[in-house]
């Protein structure tokens, strides 16, 4: 861990964050808005990577955790008029509870079976939103009366700050002894258990941390958009984007996941002129990365550094 502060990765990340922080001084509000969403997405992807890359749990439903946080915050604000900050905190807490519920099957079943349970969780949440339309706004979406701020620059800094802090915590956690135990229990639960580590406790912790950051980010995103809808925070397609971001950026690197998310969202925007083919091109690029650089962007960069 101490080595990290002198490593090249640390200086590169620091430089990137400083450059990113000065962006509002010379780029348009449009670019800032795009990056704001990308940063929140980066947190989704990092939280997912903690669960998959380290705890070894294939969570096909990152949007279950995101959606619970986002909708809890949104509903409390829109229907009960509670203050924005309270709603955000409660959204994150609700997401932690959702994470615990999701962790229950994970401790019983493994691999594809767990993956499916998480997918079903998303579909259930989606059905719930549609069925209880009075409360949730249904398929049209929920309009949120309050926002944190309408200043594009301030929103951008909040998102950047949030992503940087989350990245520091999640990365620190992944490199800590707890992260190593988590990685061991993900790769070989029997052996890790035989070494005397409490796997259940570690995995539960991973679920709680992942859910907390997913929910918090989801709640913040809702107050940035001013609306909560199935298409933006719950849909399986959103979850697919989160997973693709993490795999693209390099799984088991945490920081790579954020890079992948930013790339995915910015690339999607650049390809907008190609119209309907944009998603096709992004998917094709992602597939090529998966096939030829399975380590992802950061994985490829780090292994080259390690070799030289």
């Amino acid at each position: 861990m101490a080595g990290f502060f002198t490593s090249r990765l640390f200086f590169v990340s620091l430089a990137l964050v400083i450059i990113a922080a000065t962006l509002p001084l010379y780029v348009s509000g449009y670019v800032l808005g795009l990056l704001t969403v990308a940063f929140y997405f980066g947190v989704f992807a990092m939280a997912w990577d903690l669960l998959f890359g380290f705890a070894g749990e294939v969570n096909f439903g990152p949007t279950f955790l995101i959606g619970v946080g986002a909708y809890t915050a949104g509903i409390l604000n829109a229907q009960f008029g509670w203050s924005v900050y309270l709603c955000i905190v409660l959204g994150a807490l609700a997401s932690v509870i959702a994470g615990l519920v999701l962790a229950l099957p994970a401790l019983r079943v493994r691999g594809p079976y767990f993956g499916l349970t998480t997918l079903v969780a998303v579909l259930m949440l989606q059905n719930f939103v549609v069925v209880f339309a009075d409360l949730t706004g249904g398929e049209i979406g929920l309009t949120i009366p309050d926002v944190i701020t309408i200043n594009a620059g301030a929103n951008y800094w909040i998102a950047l700050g949030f992503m940087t802090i989350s990245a520091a915590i999640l990365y620190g956690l992944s490199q800590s002894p707890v992260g190593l135990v988590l990685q061991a229990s993900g790769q070989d639960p029997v052996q890790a258990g035989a070494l005397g580590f409490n796997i259940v406790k570690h995995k539960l912790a991973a679920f709680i941390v992942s859910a907390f950051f997913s929910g918090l980010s989801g709640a913040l995103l809702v107050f940035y958009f001013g609306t909560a809808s199935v298409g933006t925070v719950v849909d399986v397609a959103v979850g697919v984007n989160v997973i693709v971001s993490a795999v693209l950026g390099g799984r088991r690197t945490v920081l790579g996941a954020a890079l992948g998310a930013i790339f995915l969202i910015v690339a999607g925007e650049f390809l907008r002129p190609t119209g309907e083919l944009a998603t096709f091109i992004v998917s094709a690029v992602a597939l090529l990365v998966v096939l030829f650089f399975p380590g992802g962007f950061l994985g490829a960069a780090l292994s080259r550094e390690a070799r030289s």
Partner: protein
Amino acid sequence: MRAFQILIDGFAISALYALGATGFTLIFGVSGVLNLSHGAIMVAAAVAAWAAASILGVGTYAGALIGVAVALITAFATYFAVVKPIQDSRRIPNEEKEIFVLTGTLLWGIMIQELIAYFFTNNAKTVLPIVEGVVEILGVRTPSNEIFTAIVCCLVIALLWLLVNRTRTGKAVLAASMNPRGVTLLGLELTHIYIVVWAIYGILAGIAGVLLGMFLGVSSYSVGPLTASAFSIVVLGGLGSVSGSLIAAFVVGYLETLTAYLVSPAYRTIPALLLLVFVMYIRPQGLLGRR
């Protein structure tokens, strides 16, 4: 009257689900691959059949054949361009191949979906049915097409059963699903078996897709729900167990039909999802699955 209607409609939709899920579970059983581009392959088959029959005007039979052929080609493309490279890759650790196959086939499915949307728009397409008209069974007016769908599904599944249990190739496939290493020790090439399985899969998915296109119609939006329903049926029945999938398909099919008729079509999928969660907690390996 209504009971008969539910019985008949439920049978047709269940048989279709069964056909769609059988190929999916076969591939998993033999090669451990969960193909998330399944829905895309089915939709590709239906859209090809629709385009051949409605735009090129080759007739319903030729259209259906073209649809199945397109599914077969897409299935092979999936195997050779996505699944095989990942399985053969040395840079991907073995324990992570599963997630890479899932991600890879998912992306591949999205690519197919987007191409279909680009060339043929997102509009729903109904393939011209091979059989037209309406017949009355037990007092229920039923489209002949629905009966045709049910019969074809049952026939194809019966043929598959014969193929797997009565032919040499089929027995090799069955053996590979039980013990892949044992099969290679007997001098059979696993890759050949995989190709046979993907061919069977392509044909099954193609037939299911074309029939679905005739029965309910498809659009590029059906890709996700189709994959999800095949996935849940297969898990409910037990991954890799063909008979388990057949039972699960009928359970899900009838549950959906019952809900749609008795409660509301809007809640159609909810009871099946609840059942799935319930089964996962009680019996994580599914109805007939082995651990």
